C-alpha cells in the first residue's frame, strides 16, 4: 500500500454537517445530526436499514433538502445548491453506470457537462481509467465488465471530476462475499492513492471497521457514537453500539451492587461483574455485553486464572469457522446462551455437546449499560 495522504492538521474539514434534520410526515428520518469529516479521511456512517443513513447521504449529495441545519462542504454552505453544482460526487448503490454509453463515455460524461473539449476529456478519461487499473477498457460496454471492474468505473467516473468529497452508498452491497472482501481492500487502496475524502454508508459493521478512519454509528435518525473503529469496538458508548458493532453476548439482569466503575449483576441467578458505562442505580435493570474473545475457556476451574471469578456452562454446539470458531454454551445458573471464542491452538476442538466447561473473563472487558437505552 502506498502511504496515505495524512489528514491535514488544522485544515478546515471537508464536510461539516450542522444539526441537520429531515422529517417525512410524522417520522423524523434524521434528527439534528452533527459531525465533521477531516480532509483526506475515510468516514463511514454505519447503521441498520431504516436508520436514516441513506437520507443523510442524499442530503449531502443534494437530492433531498434538509428541514433544518446546514451542510458545509469545503467551507461553503450547500443550502439551496443543487446536486449538479456541488463539489460532491456519488457512487450509487447499484453503481448506476450508463448502459447506453461505453466505459470511456461514462467516465467522460461529467467532463462533457463541464464543457471540456472532446479530445481533452477522452484523454483525461483514459488517464483516470489507467489509474484505477482499467487501461484500455474505455471502448468496452459496461455490461462486458465484471462486478469489481464496474465499481472501479463508477469511482473513476466520479474521481475524474476531482470532487472535494466522494459519497459511496453501500456500493459493495450487491457483490458476492468473496468479491466484497476483495473490493473492500481495493476501495481502501483507491482512497489512499487519491487522498480524497470518502463518506461511505453501510449496514455492514465489518466494512465500516476495516475501511474507516472514523465511523458514526447511526440509529433512529441520530448518531449513537462517533469514533475510531477501535473506540467503537472496545468502548461502545451505548448498548446499541455494543450490540451492533462486532459479535457480542448480551446479558440482561439487575444491578445488585455498585462499586465505583464495577457493577455486580444478577442475571437469572448467575452473578457476574462488569464495567459500568453511564449512570446505573442500585437495583436497576441492566444489559451487559461480553465479547466472545474476551472470555477464556477451561475444562476445570483450576485451568483458569485464580484472580477472576469462575463461571461454568454446558456445551450446546461447537461452531467451527476457522479463526472465528466459537463454542455455544448454556450458562449453568441462568440458562443463557453464550458464545465464547475457541483458542487458535485447537485445544478445545474435541468438545462435545453436553460437556461441562468453565470460563472466566476480565470484568473490565464486560460493559454494562442501564437497560432500555439500546432502542
Amino acid at each position, binding site marked *: 500500500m502506498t502511504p496515505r495522504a495524512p489528514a491535514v492538521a488544522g485544515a478546515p474539514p471537508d464536510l461539516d454537517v450542522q444539526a441537520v434534520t429531515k422529517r417525512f410526515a410524522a417520522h423524523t428520518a434524521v434528527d439534528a445530526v452533527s459531525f465533521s469529516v477531516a480532509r483526506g479521511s475515510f468516514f463511514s456512517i454505519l447503521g441498520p436499514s431504516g436508520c436514516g443513513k441513506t437520507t443523510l447521504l442524499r442530503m449531502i449529495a443534494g437530492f433531498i433538502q434538509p428541514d433544518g441545519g446546514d451542510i458545509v462542504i469545503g467551507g461553503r454552505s450547500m443550502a439551496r445548491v443543487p446536486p*449538479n453544482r456541488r463539489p460532491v460526487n*456519488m457512487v450509487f448503490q447499484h453503481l448506476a453506470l450508463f448502459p447506453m454509453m461505453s466505459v470511456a463515455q461514462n467516465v467522460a460524461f461529467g467532463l462533457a457537462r463541464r464543457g471540456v473539449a472532446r479530445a481533452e476529456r477522452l484523454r483525461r478519461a483514459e488517464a483516470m481509467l489507467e489509474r484505477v487499473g482499467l487501461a484500455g477498457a474505455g471502448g468496452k460496454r459496461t455490461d462486458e465488465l465484471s462486478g469489481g471492474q464496474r465499481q472501479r468505473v463508477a469511482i473513476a467516473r466520479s474521481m475524474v471530476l476531482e470532487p472535494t468529497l466522494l459519497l459511496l452508498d453501500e456500493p459493495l452491497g450487491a457483490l458476492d462475499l468473496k468479491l466484497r472482501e476483495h473490493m473492500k481492500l481495493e476501495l481502501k487502496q483507491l482512497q489512499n492513492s487519491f487522498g480524497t475524502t470518502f463518506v461511505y454508508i453501510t449496514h455492514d459493521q465489518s466494512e465500516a471497521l476495516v475501511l474507516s478512519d472514523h465511523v458514526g454509528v447511526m440509529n433512529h435518525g441520530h448518531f449513537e457514537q462517533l469514533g475510531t473503529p477501535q473506540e467503537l469496538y472496545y468502548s461502545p458508548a451505548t448498548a446499541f453500539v455494543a450490540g451492533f458493532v462486532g459479535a457480542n453476548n448480551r446479558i440482561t439482569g439487575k444491578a445488585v451492587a455498585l462499586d465505583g466503575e464495577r457493577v455486580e449483576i444478577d442475571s437469572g441467578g448467575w452473578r457476574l461483574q462488569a464495567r459500568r458505562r453511564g449512570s446505573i442505580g442500585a437495583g436497576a435493570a441492566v444489559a451487559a455485553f461480553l465479547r466472545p474473545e474476551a472470555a477464556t475457556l477451561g475444562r476445570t476451574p483450576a485451568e483458569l486464572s485464580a484472580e477472576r471469578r469462575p463461571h461454568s456452562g454446558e456445551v450446546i454446539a461447537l461452531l467451527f469457522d476457522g479463526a472465528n470458531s466459537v463454542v455455544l454454551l448454556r450458562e449453568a445458573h441462568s440458562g443463557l446462551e453464550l458464545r465464547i471464542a475457541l483458542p487458535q491452538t485447537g485445544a478445545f476442538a474435541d468438545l462435545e455437546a453436553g460437556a461441562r466447561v468453565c470460563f472466566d473473563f476480565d470484568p473490565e472487558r464486560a460493559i454494562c449499560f442501564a437497560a432500555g437505552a439500546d432502542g
Partner: protein
Amino acid sequence: MADNAVTAAGYRRLLLALLLAPALLWLFGLIVLPHVDLAIISLRERVAPRQYVASLAQYRTFFSEPLYWHVFVRTALMSALATALTLLVAFPIAWTIAKLARGRTSALLFVVCLIPFWVSETVRTLGWMILLRESGVLPSVLVHLGLAAQPPELLYHDATILVGLVYTSLLFMVVPLVGSLESLDNSLIEAAYDLGGQGWSVLREIVIPHAAPGITAGCIVVFMLTLGNYLTPTLLGGKNSLWFTEQIYNQFITRFNWEQGAALGFLLLALSTVMVWLGLTVSGQRFSDVMRRT
C-alpha cells in the same frame, strides 16, 4: 418406444398447428389473400365491359396525375408532422405517469388517456366538430371573450386535422413511452445530475437513448394509424383535407374504379413501409427490439 416418441412428437405438432390455426387463418384470409387479389386488380386495365388486360396503366396514372402526387406527399408530410406533435404531447404525459405519479394517481392518469377510446372514433370526431364548427362552443366562447368579432370557422383547416389526429393517436404513443420510461432506473437520472448534468443534457444523453425503442415503436404505430386514417381528416378537414385514404375511398366507392383504388392502396402500403424503414434507419433501431416495446 420409438413409435411412441414419433406419435408424441406428431401430437405435439398437431396441437401446435391447431393452436396457430386461428392466427394463420386470420393472417392468410384477411391480410394475404385480399392483398394478392388487390395486387392482381391493380395490375389490370378495363378495355371493355368485363374485359381486362394486364397493364401498369393505374400506376402510370398516379405518376402522371399531379393531384395524386400532391395528395400523396401531403399525406406523408402531415402524418409525419402529426407523429412528431403526438410525441411532443405524449412525452410529458408518459413521464408524469412513469416517473412522477405514484400508484393510484399513475393508474388514474392512464385511465384518463384511455377514456376517449370508450366512444367510437366517429362520435369522438363529431365531438370535435361540435366544439369547433362556426356555431360551435369554441367560436362562441371566443366571441364572448371579445377575442373575435365574428364566430370564426375553426373546422376545415390543416391545423384542425392535426389536432384531431394527435388526439386520436395520443394513447398509442403514451403506452410504449410509459413502458420504456418505467424501465429507466431513477438512479441513472440522479447519477447524471450528480455528475453535473442539466435538464436538457440528461434528457438528451440518458432519457432519450434509453427510451429510443419505445419512442420508435410509438412513432411507427402512430404514423401508420395516421397515414391510414380516413374518418378524422375527412370530417375535420372536409373537402380541403386531401388525404390519400380519401382518394382510395373515392376510387373504390364513388368512381367504382377498383383498379385505380387498388393501385393507390399499394402505393400507400409502399409509402408506409419506406417511411418505417427510414425511421428505423435514421434512429438506428432494430425492428425486433422496437416491436417488443409495442
